[in-house]
């Protein structure tokens, strides 16, 4: 999507405390890599970081023009209450300001930026203040402990006239995969098998938005002066860039990660603003965000940048010992909520058609409907073609039992083999079973949680008695 807006100002909130990777490595006696992370003190959180960054922007802005405020975070302080509204009020914006909270994704920051572009380009707001801040913690001793840092960032998006950097175009790619997640009742994000996540969840969507943004802008790879990609680890982004023929030395611009760690929803915008501070008029910047898909944003500098907020913020850091960091944030208690045994995000990805969309397979040759991920029809001796077949969500109980020894919150656990209307069979747990299901009962399928293996909800279809209209 092309856009008519630009970035007029920005500000950073980088916590001053630093935790060196070396301190963590020594504590756990294992190898790591150099660098440090910015970490919050006991009185900081995503809201205070957001406020700090926003105040820096507001300082030299006519705030009457700000008609929208978007706050992005995966670690919002409130589950119910708008941080955007609170920040808008605190910053003295009028109560006609459109305030939006964006959360739930590592990509929340770039989603906020894109939404701001659309609001300005579409004429809904003269300018929009985008604030992104995150304070993600990792399980002490876990392999991703070296990854997460804390930061806030704010950007003022307005019409392109007078902007430091013009936003030329942006695009996104939404796709759900269990690569990384944090449930509402746990403190630490979890991650699936790394190589699996990098391949499917990272490389594919990132490649897609990169290809599309280049097409929209008409840029060649070599036209890009600075590429600013989110990288969930040290290697993923450089691998993507190399594959696409970028000159890493000249074009790859990540001033933030080695010193701050990955700062969640704020990270892409932190990297982007830091890059802007290093750019001169006419330079072209490409920012690639990641999380539940990917997004791309193409910018061109319209003025030489004279500020160096980022450099200044980096200079203020001081190291704190690891034990103090753990104590300040009470990180030693486990938040493992796993139950239900084995699960695999990799396996789930392969089974996605059935577990999300009830897409089974039908044999073109014999017509059998198979609700299993089989490569061919088990009834035909020859290889046959299978076509997608969407199962219906109603059916009849063909057989049923109740498991009295299977661990379940409301024993016994009903299990039913259901022949579905229109073809196909599933064997499922019974939900909402007030009265025991019997053979011949009509049922409907409902999408429910099966267990919490792997510290995340594992969903699948269950069946329950079909609601009947009384005559």
């Amino acid at each position, binding site marked *: 999507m092309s856009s008519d807006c630009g970035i007029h100002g920005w500000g950073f909130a980088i916590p001053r405390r630093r935790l060196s990777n070396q301190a963590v490595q020594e504590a756990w006696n294992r190898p790591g890599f150099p660098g440090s992370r910015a970490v919050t003190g006991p009185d900081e959180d995503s809201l205070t970081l957001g406020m700090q960054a926003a105040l820096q922007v507001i300082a030299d802005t006519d705030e009457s023009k700000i008609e929208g405020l978007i706050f992005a975070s995966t670690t919002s302080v409130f589950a119910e209450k708008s941080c955007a509204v609170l920040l808008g009020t605190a910053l003295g914006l009028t109560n006609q300001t459109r305030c939006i909270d964006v959360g739930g994704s590592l990509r929340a920051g770039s989603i906020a930026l894109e939404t701001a572009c659309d609001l300005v380009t579409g004429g809904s707001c003269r300018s929009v203040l985008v604030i992104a801040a995150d304070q993600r913690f990792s399980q002490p001793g876990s392999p991703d402990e070296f990854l997460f840092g804390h930061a806030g960032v704010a950007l003022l998006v307005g019409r392109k006239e007078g902007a430091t950097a013009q936003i030329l175009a942006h695009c996104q790619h939404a796709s759900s995969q269990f690569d990384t997640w944090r449930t509402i009742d746990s403190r630490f994000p979890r991650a699936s098998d790394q190589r699996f996540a990098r391949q499917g969840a990272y490389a594919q969507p990132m490649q897609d938005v990169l290809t599309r943004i280049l097409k929209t802008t008409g840029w060649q790879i070599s036209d890009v002066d600075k590429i600013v990609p989110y990288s969930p680890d040290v290697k993923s982004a450089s691998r993507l860039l190399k594959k696409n023929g970028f000159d890493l030395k000249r074009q790859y611009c990540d001033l933030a990660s080695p010193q701050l760690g990955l700062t969640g929803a704020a990270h892409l915008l932190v990297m982007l603003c830091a890059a802007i501070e290093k750019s001169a008029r006419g330079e072209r910047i490409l920012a690639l965000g990641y999380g539940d898909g990917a997004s791309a944003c193409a910018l061109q500098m319209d003025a030489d940048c004279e500020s160096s907020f980022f450099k200044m913020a980096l200079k203020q850091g001081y190291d704190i010992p690891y034990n103090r960091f753990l104590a300040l944030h009470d990180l030693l208690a486990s938040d493992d909520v796993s139950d*239900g*045994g*084995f*699960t*695999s995000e990799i*396996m*789930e990805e392969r*089974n996605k058609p059935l*577990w999300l969309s009830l897409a089974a397979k039908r044999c073109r040759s014999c017509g*059998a*409907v*198979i*609700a*299993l991920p089989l490569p061919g029809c*088990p*009834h035909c001796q020859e290889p046959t073609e299978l076509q997608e077949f969407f199962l219906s969500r109603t059916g009849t109980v*063909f*057989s*049923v*039992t*109740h*498991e*009295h*020894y*299977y*661990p*379940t919150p409301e024993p*016994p*656990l009903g*299990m039913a*083999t259901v*022949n579905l209307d229109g*073809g*196909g*069979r*599933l*064997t499922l*747990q019974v939900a909402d079973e007030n009265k*025991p299901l019997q*053979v*011949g009962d009509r049922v409907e399928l409902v999408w429910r949680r*099966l*267990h919490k*293996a792997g510290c995340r909800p*594992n969903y*699948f279809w269950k069946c329950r008695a079909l609601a009947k209209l009384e005559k």
Partner: protein
Amino acid sequence: MSVKKLKDQVCVVGIGWTPFGELFLQSYEDLVAEAAHAAMRDAGVSQRQIDAAWLGTAFPDAGVYKGRAGMDLAEPLGLFDIPVTRVSNYCATAAETVRGAVNSLLAGESNVALALGVEKLRDRSPQDSIVKMMVEMGHPFYQKGFTAAGTFAMYASRHFEKYGVTREDLARISVKNHAHACLNPKAHYRREITLEQALGSPMVADPLTLMDSCPTTDGAAAVILVRTEDAKNFSGIPVYLKGLGLSVSTGWDLPFFDESYDLLSFEAAKVAARKAYQEADIDEPAQQIDLAEVHDCFSIVELLTYEDLGFCKPGNAKDLVGSGATRRDGHIPVNVSGGLLSCGHPVGATGIRMVCEVCEHLRGSAGDRQIPEARIGLTHNIGGPGAVAAVTVLGKEKS
């Protein structure tokens, strides 16, 4: 090329099985040694004569990872420098060891083969062994919620619906097998139960109760097999292998996710029986077979197996139970040992334990529970749930 018929070419010359039960003081290795030594003694062979061996353990993960490979048979015996192969085929695991040994003998690879099955389940509490395996190790969502009992309960529910089978019909099987076991000193449970006790026992997966379900049991069983022409060189009374069929006829999940399955019978058992009967010239199983050891992991499985093995027509199994025909004094005694319901079911050992039981009767050495004048006996296993089955037919004489 037509397939060579097995008939009478191989015989069992040695049998040995440990008592079945909660053998807390015996390790996996102890069980291996006890069964193997008993079978060798019975056959009159020294360990040095064994030139190939098969080890059957279905669930090494239920214990301490013993039984993952042939070495776990070789090591406790010091049976080294010969091929030892671990096989696994769910509840047909033990039958698979016999099949491996038979084929090796027929191919001329070995002259004296040991087939041994062992399962050590009670290093964990019963809820922790096979039930927990289904909870913790199964697919994240396919069949999640089932225990073994539940999968077979689905077949029971269909029999109730289609053929009017009742809980009493199932309970009668349990009562019968418990009564049989009182005469078997090696059975896990040796206690008669009444129909009321069976019906009143706690529900496991309806309609199956605790008394419809086999217990969690340790045990091992072994046989020594040789080519019939060599039988004279051994002291054990030979019992002839007349037919052996093994079939995989579906997968673990398929019957529950494909509406073409009626959940009334096990195709694998029918196919395995057809092959074994053909080799053994059995046309009328109910008349020709003098005793059968069938896979009553749950009572419903014994019931529907009557139909799968052709002891009666589909739908008539409940009448066969009711008539008493499958009792020890009936015309086709089934599970005179007490079956899995009373002997227990150390999965990898069960099929060989059945072969040992049938051999005892055919040799005339079954003691109090001897079926008089038994000439032809059958063993049957079904596993996975219903995907794989094995049937063997054993005979007292060469035909």
